[in-house]
């Protein structure tokens, strides 16, 4: 493999759960040498989170953990013990980046806040990921992915008016925050190289969600202009045919309404004359709910219900209409497009064997992205990494007995 983007960059990863480990994975998959530090005994709580290989809840079989920790070497270390702290500081001296995602009081209480670490390694970049940031009244609050998503604004108006707001599927907020932390860390690394000293980054999931996740930014202005807040609604558009429609083999999403797109829709339906039909084609008709119901029932449903998602998609694309089938995980993985792009990555692992993961987030011939090793077993690289620091097997046995490793 060619040299990678971050080849030679050394990262100490103290993070757990999803967002922090994803940030570290992002750096690792681009070439950085990441040492994942887990607490002795139980390790990263993500080892207890599914989906598990063959639905077997075993700490070395969590698909989530295996995916989040590719390309990292793993050690165990008790940061609360004096010996553990000493070892950690030795690792910090050799590192370019430290990542942590504890609650804000934790690192300072261990004497491991940036001001301390900077003293022994002035070039160090340190990134703290947290739910609410390192300052402000909620800094110690607990949260989950859904709770964070709910803070950001878009959950409030997702769902139907009579029911509770609903979140997006999955735990996408955590991943997005992880990517953003990787971006911020790379920015700081770039600057550190130029100026010769590092810095500290405080990234809050609350703010990251707020400022990047979706149309929150324009909503903020909309509120200042109108004084009114966004409401939940089962449909996002008043024009037609726009929205999620059932079809022969599932659901299909289409943006076929408004005076701009409706003529294209009319053409797609093989009835171009509809574009000039006063019942449907005018700006006024396009926002009339009764017209929408009539059009859907008499014209659109008969067309779409006879077609599969892919047939409808082809027809809509031919007419230059924004659209797409609603895919589930199986559809996505069986899709020819991904297969054709060699998107999926197979990674071998001593406990589970070969498994398939999502692949490169970007492509470059010059600077390859790639999986060099699977996620570490708990403490797998203790001897290798502490050996590099000069600890003998006997030293390590003692440290293990003392609960340090």
């Amino acid at each position, binding site marked *: 493999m060619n040299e990678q*983007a971050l080849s030679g960059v050394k990262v100490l990863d103290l993070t757990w759960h999803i967002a922090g480990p994803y940030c570290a994975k992002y750096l690792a998959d681009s070439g950085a040498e990441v040492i994942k530090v887990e607490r002795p005994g139980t390790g990263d709580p993500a080892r207890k989170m599914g989906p598990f290989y063959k639905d077997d809840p075993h700490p070395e079989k969590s698909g989530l953990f295996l995916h989040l920790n590719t390309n990292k070497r793993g050690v165990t270390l008790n940061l609360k013990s004096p010996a553990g702290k000493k070892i950690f500081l030795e690792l910090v001296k050799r590192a370019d980046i430290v990542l942590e995602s504890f609650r804000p009081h934790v690192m300072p209480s261990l004497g491991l806040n*940036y001001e301390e670490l900077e003293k022994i390694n002035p070039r160090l970049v340190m990134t703290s990921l947290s739910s609410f940031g390192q300052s402000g009244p909620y800094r110690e609050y607990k949260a*989950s992915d859904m709770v964070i998503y709910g803070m950001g604004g878009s959950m409030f108006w997702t769902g139907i008016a009579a029911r509770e707001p609903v979140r997006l599927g999955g735990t996408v907020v955590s991943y997005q925050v992880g990517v953003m932390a990787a971006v911020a860390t790379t*920015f700081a690394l770039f600057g550190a190289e130029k100026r010769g000293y590092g810095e500290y980054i405080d990234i809050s999931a609350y703010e990251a969600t707020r400022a990047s996740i979706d149309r929150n930014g324009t909503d903020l202005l909309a509120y200042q202009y109108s004084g009114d807040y966004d409401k939940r609604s089962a449909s996002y558009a008043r024009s037609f045919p726009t929205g999620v429609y059932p079809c022969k083999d599932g659901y299909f999403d289409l943006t076929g309404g408004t005076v701009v797109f409706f003529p294209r829709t009319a053409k797609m339906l093989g009835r171009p004359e509809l574009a000039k039909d006063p019942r449907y084609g005018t700006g006024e008709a396009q926002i009339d709910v009764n017209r929408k119901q009539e059009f859907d029932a008499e014209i659109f449903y008969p067309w779409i219900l006879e077609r599969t998602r892919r047939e409808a998609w082809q027809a809509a694309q031919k007419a230059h209409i924004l659209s797409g089938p609603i895919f*589930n995980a199986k559809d996505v993985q069986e899709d020819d497009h991904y297969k054709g792009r060699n998107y999926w990555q197979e990674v071998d692992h001593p406990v589970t064997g070969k498994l398939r993961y999502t692949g490169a987030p970007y492509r470059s011939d010059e600077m390859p992205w790639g999986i060099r090793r699977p996620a570490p077993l708990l403490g797998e690289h203790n001897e290798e990494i502490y050996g590099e620091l000069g600890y003998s097997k006997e030293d390590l046995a003692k440290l293990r007995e003392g609960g340090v490793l």
Partner: protein
Amino acid sequence: MEQMALEGLTIVDFGQAWAGPHFSRTLADMGARVIKIESRRQMDSVRGLPPWPTGSKPGPLNSGYYTWLNRNKLGVTIDLSTPQGPGLAMEIIKISDALVENFSRGVMGKYGLDYASVQKVHPKIIYVAMTAFGSEGPYKNYVMYGRNQIYLSGLAHTTGHPERPPHPINFSWGDPVAAQHAAFAMLSALYYRNRTGKGQYIELSQWESLIGITPENILDYTLNRNVRSRRGNRHDYMAPHNTYRCAGGDVEWVGIAVETDEEWQSLCEAMGSPEWAKDEKFADGFRRWQNQEELDARIGEWTVQHRKYEVTDILQKAGVAAFPTLSNRGLVEDPHLNARGFFVEIDHPEPEMKNRKYDGLLWKMSKTPGQIRHRAPYPGEHNNYVFGELLGMPQKEIDRLVEEKVLL
């Protein structure tokens, strides 16, 4: 103030709509000089999108969508369809470290600004193409916006109530996700260039970047052939895990997530240790998960007696994850975001747009923090600066290009 992290970098930005501009905004906020290229013939489409100030005439100068996404950028107008247009763009490319574009496939090539052409005059450029599907595969020519990506990625299939169709999602998750992935790719390429001296072409497929952040959904199928579907706010193993109505009407909701038995006990105590909570069917995590519909109804009976911040305060003090599900109004008023100085006021010459609050920087850097230096540009506002000052073109020449509608 020390330098900003990306000060000294110049980015030429052909980004349109959301994904490209969000990407370049991230860089601009952290100090990069971003030169945004548009023209009055082909204006960035978001200049035609709301929100507009109440009572004002909607136009390309006062679209809130545009001002939100394009702060801190220099605005240049070049009509790329004129014979001289692409050459002028190339002059800007030559003084840039990196280029970003998210046009439909083939547009940059049509103007002779594809990577092969750019590389010839500027081999060290980092060229980032943000495509919908990539340059190979059966969908390479399909048109696609970030919103549609939600449907294609499996996200929509898993969003909404179990008894209803996939919920329509009216926002473009695919865009900011792709934007951040692209920002990482560009910066790591610049870091690589510092080491090796080599420029390169980076292609991003928005669809792939979105799928990359939904691993549980993908893995459950890979590992176990489980096809996940909609389940409202339910979690894999946490229960209770939902959004609950609070006192005071439709803006009052709180999200609560309980992971451990200890947290469950704390929740029960916080609710005043009600009799129902002692029932066998809520005795452990698995049984709570199995009986969560009833559990949710019971908890809702408690939350609806309190305001959302009251519930949050009570539960957080007890060590339980809880926070209001905020509307846009709730966010502007939130004490924490305000205490951290998150929002920024940006001035604007349009009277109704003066000193409006926008979301602030994406993260805080201790020594080289980003800054909001100026509002989004008017079309061509920085033509004189970029062509005159940066490229050394005589004013007469610039005026002629304006007259000939090349700088349009």
